[in-house]
């Protein structure tokens, strides 16, 4: 049979494809629906948090920080309750990471504050001596991309039926409504910050990336 296949490239290719294709089907499909269910109480991100999550992704925070607490005592002691599948139901993409050059962040909102993040992002080694994390002064200079954050929320609502605007769930509404909500959310973060540039920018109607990033991380619980 193999000799015959080696002279018939078409059937050879079909054979290879069948052999490699079905492992994916057998391992991924059976639990697909179940793995997509949210926990009771898991809510989609607010638009400001989505903007912050985009900042997190743009700067590759996931290359050094995991968001997956494994069920070992050494991990739950250090980071909090182990992660559950349903908690990730609105994570597109997932951000588990593969290397902990820095600590896990899945529940960082439980033990770090706006103030801590503000100091740390400007100069990590000043807050954690010996830290190898880069400084992120530019997050205090750049404005968030509100349009793209809203576009992402609207897309997941329309395409994947993410329950915005449902009872007990975050409001999305029109872009104008969402913008108002984003400024209200951002105001709470800005109030807890010291940086004068960020405060001035907020007064002038601009939200800096650092504000959205902190909003996102404070929501990780």
């Amino acid at each position, binding site marked *: 049979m193999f000799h015959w296949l080696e002279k018939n490239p078409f059937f050879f290719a079909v054979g290879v494809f069948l052999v490699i294709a079905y492992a994916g089907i057998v391992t991924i499909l059976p639990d697909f629906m179940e793995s997509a269910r949210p926990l009771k109480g898991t809510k989609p991100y607010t638009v400001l948090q989505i903007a912050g999550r985009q900042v997190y992704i743009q700067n590759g925070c996931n290359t050094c920080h995991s968001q997956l607490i494994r069920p070992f005592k050494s991990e739950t002691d250090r980071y909090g309750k182990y992660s559950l599948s349903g908690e990730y139901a609105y994570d597109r993409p997932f951000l588990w990471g593969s290397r902990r050059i820095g600590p896990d962040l899945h529940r960082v909102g439980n033990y770090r504050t706006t103030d801590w993040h503000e100091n740390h992002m400007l100069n990590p080694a000043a807050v954690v001596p*010996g830290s190898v994390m880069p400084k992120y002064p530019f997050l205090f200079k750049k404005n968030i991309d509100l349009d793209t954050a809203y576009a992402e929320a609207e897309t997941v609502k329309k395409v994947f039926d993410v329950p915005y605007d449902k009872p007990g769930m975050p409001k999305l509404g029109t872009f104008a409504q969402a913008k108002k909500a984003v400024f209200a959310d951002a105001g709470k973060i800005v109030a807890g910050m010291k940086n004068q540039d960020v405060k001035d920018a907020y007064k002038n109607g601009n939200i800096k990336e650092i504000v959205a990033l902190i909003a996102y991380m404070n929501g990780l619980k």
Partner: protein
Amino acid sequence: MQSSNAINYDYTVAKYFTISAIVLGIVGMSVGVLIAFQLAFPELNNLFGEYGTFGRLRPIHTDGVAFGFTVSGIFATWFYVGQRVLKVSMAESKFLMFIGKLQFWLYIIGVAVAVVSLALGYTTSKEYAEFEWPVDIAIVVVWVLWGVSIFGLIGIRREKVLYISVWYYIATFLGVAMLYVFNNMEVPTYFVSGMGNWFHSVSMYAGSNDAMVQWWYGHNAVAFVFTVPIIAMIYYFLPKESGQPVFSYKLSLLSFWGLMFVYLWAGGHHLLYSTVPDWVQTMASIFSIILILPSWGSAINMLLTMKGEWGQLKENPLVKFYVLASTFYMLSTLEGPIQAIKSVNALAHFTDWIPGHVHDGTLGWVGFMIIGAIFHMAPRMFKKEIYSKKLVEAQFWLQTTGIVMYFTSMWISGITQGMMWRATDQYGNLAYSFIDTVEVLHPYWTLRAVGGSFYLIGVFMWAYNIYKTATSSKAIEKEPQYATPMA
């Protein structure tokens, strides 16, 4: 038609991709060395503002060496090996020649857009699939063009039986196509809501499902970029260079179909103790162990091909590259399954042991095969002797030293950090804060960066040697049969 010398093979496209393999190898590995030094000396993160941080550069390194250096090497060797084992010249078909050149230029444009977009922060964040959807589309087009080349050349072949290398090239084409398309399913947000950045997209899958698809892809991208096409290379270049027939046809059959069947199940070993279903994790763990069989099958087949001919290792530096490559392949394919055992993985996951494992495979196996393959091809493409045998020797030893420094330091640092994370004091409290487990790694990170630098210097020596070969080496009149002529 009987003698291979009767056909005038056309290496135009092979030469193009040889150049891009060298250039992108230098780019990708230079970024790798820079980010390795960034871990040891964090001030280096501030060199280029937001574009120079570890998080931005890391995907440029990984994608640069995987899709730049390695994929160029795969294409270059295909456009060389393909013609020769199918006994047909690219010059015989204007159409295939056009497709080959088109593939190259689209590839170069794709690479340029990819590098710039990653530097600007346009990323999906999924490892080795970071490119946003416009780049994905460019990649799919390039890949389809390559498929046209493969099956086009097969279509007009004179040699009816497909040689082992061709099986592996076909599998590479099919495997990457399937994996890449399904893992990069994403919805561009601009087209749904009509606002925001048109580069941006969201993944078709969420949470645990996204992780499953990603590591089904991520692990098997390793299979079909770093393993399968590299086996295609060694099945051609080792027998050619050494003048020895492949040890066992049956073993090559068993290894090929075994590898195809087993590899795809093992992706879940990246997700042990995560929130994906437990049975998937166990299955992945078991299949990872089974994977030793077909992996070692190919490697042993290659080593036994050298049976009774080990003296060649003394005379021929290219045989050294190939033999050490298959040895690193064996090391790496034993180490991987060990790390896929659940209890070992509990320690190893999230530590430096994982990138250490990746690099003994990529530097030792993938890098050495591509470097060795291009050394074999160069005199036959340019009709010149290799410029300097001494330089090849020096490069080999420098890079081997670099690899050993790299993986030994990463083993120590990975296991050290893994042990410290779980260490407790006499009352059962965690013994170390997180930063304790980072500070202790400094000497190992420095050593790793130095090892990587050695390897990079070797790549520069390789580039120089090939450049001098093409431009100012002694011409050869007749194509050499076996051992590559070197001055």
